[in-house]
């Protein structure tokens, strides 16, 4: 089943999402990138109802880009989170709401600190040191409670993430086989191998 994790550390946010595109009991694809790069310093992992996810993620991506073109500066992570939240909250009380859960990670270049937001399809937003969506969250959150360190360097952060992925692989019946891992820090966004 779909699972995504994210954690912050000293000057970075790591976001990991599984890469399977499933329909019913069938894996249709195993290399689907479910982490959008919304800007030079902003990442968004999305999961939920197939169809809604890509549609909503692209809608967000284009609007964030439009803001940057119009104003010559990008939305900072807290502002982007607010805008996305509002879109989801308005959608929730519409005729057919988007059913999309998000993890928004960014590096705030004005305050030089990482930001991570947990967002669900209802439009609830919380700023957190670490977060997860999907069945993986039941395993990963307790591990992260124990091992997460907000001052850890990137290598340690990736090691903590690895613990989560391994635990999910070990204990979850319907565990994903592959993950895409992306990091955002002062130098921008990049993909890392794990």
């Amino acid at each position: 089943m779909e699972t995504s994790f994210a954690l912050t550390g000293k000057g970075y946010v790591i976001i990991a999402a599984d890469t399977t595109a499933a329909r019913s009991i069938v894996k249709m694809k195993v290399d689907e990138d479910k982490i959008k790069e919304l800007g030079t310093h902003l990442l968004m992992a999305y999961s939920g109802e197939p169809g809604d996810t890509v549609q909503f993620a692209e809608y967000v991506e284009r609007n964030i880009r439009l803001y940057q073109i119009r104003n010559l500066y990008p939305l900072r992570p807290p502002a982007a989170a607010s805008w996305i939240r509002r879109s989801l909250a308005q959608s929730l009380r519409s005729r057919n709401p988007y059913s999309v859960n998000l993890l928004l990670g960014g590096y705030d270049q004005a305050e030089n600190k990482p930001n991570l937001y947990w967002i669900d399809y209802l439009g609830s937003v919380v700023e957190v040191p670490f977060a997860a969506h999907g069945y993986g969250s039941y395993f990963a959150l307790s591990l992260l409670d124990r091992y997460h360190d907000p001052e850890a360097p990137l290598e340690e952060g990736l090691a903590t993430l690895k613990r989560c992925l391994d635990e999910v692989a070990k204990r979850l019946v319907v565990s994903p086989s592959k993950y895409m891992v992306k990091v955002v820090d002062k130098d921008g966004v990049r993909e890392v191998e794990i």
Partner: protein
Amino acid sequence: MEYNGGSVIAMVGKDCVAIASDLRFGNQALGIASNFQRIFPVTDRTYVGLAGLGTDVTTLRERFRYRVNMYTIKEERDIEPQTFAHLVSSTLYEHRFGPYFVEPVIAGLENTSSGSKPFIAAADLIGCLNFAKDFVVAGTASSKLYGLAEGLWEPDLGPEDLFETISQTLLNGVDRDAFSGWGAVVHVITKDRVVTRTLKGRMD
């Protein structure tokens, strides 16, 4: 109401009021965050606490901020707590047949000719106001908070005693509730200042 969890309480003291809430944000039984603020300042001496569905807490907080700003600009003065309570009530009743799932609690000091007077009120999700003289509760631990407040509260408590009373009521109330807890925040509003304290709680 039980989806994200959370509780709010407000109490009247002698020339002061206190409003407090827990900090848990959960997804049913799974805890997501322990830093979810559900109490917001409206003016210097009026606060509103919103217990209920997380998304509606944020949405209403933004709506109230907008409507209070408009009021302040038009009237060229701060909104009174009682007026704000009616603003809350009418905002909620506008959505009578598709409500926001939120139980608001309002606490503040009213301006009167002879200084200031404590004011507290609570509403249900469609805006039925409850003006109480002693205390009001809302959220998933409300039944427990009623019992504790009934036992601990007494009239004419000073700011420090009121802080102790509301803190003990909240902390012990949320310990009996699976959907509330994970720390708390308490605001004590007096004539010339607001004291905000963050409390540690049981993290289970």
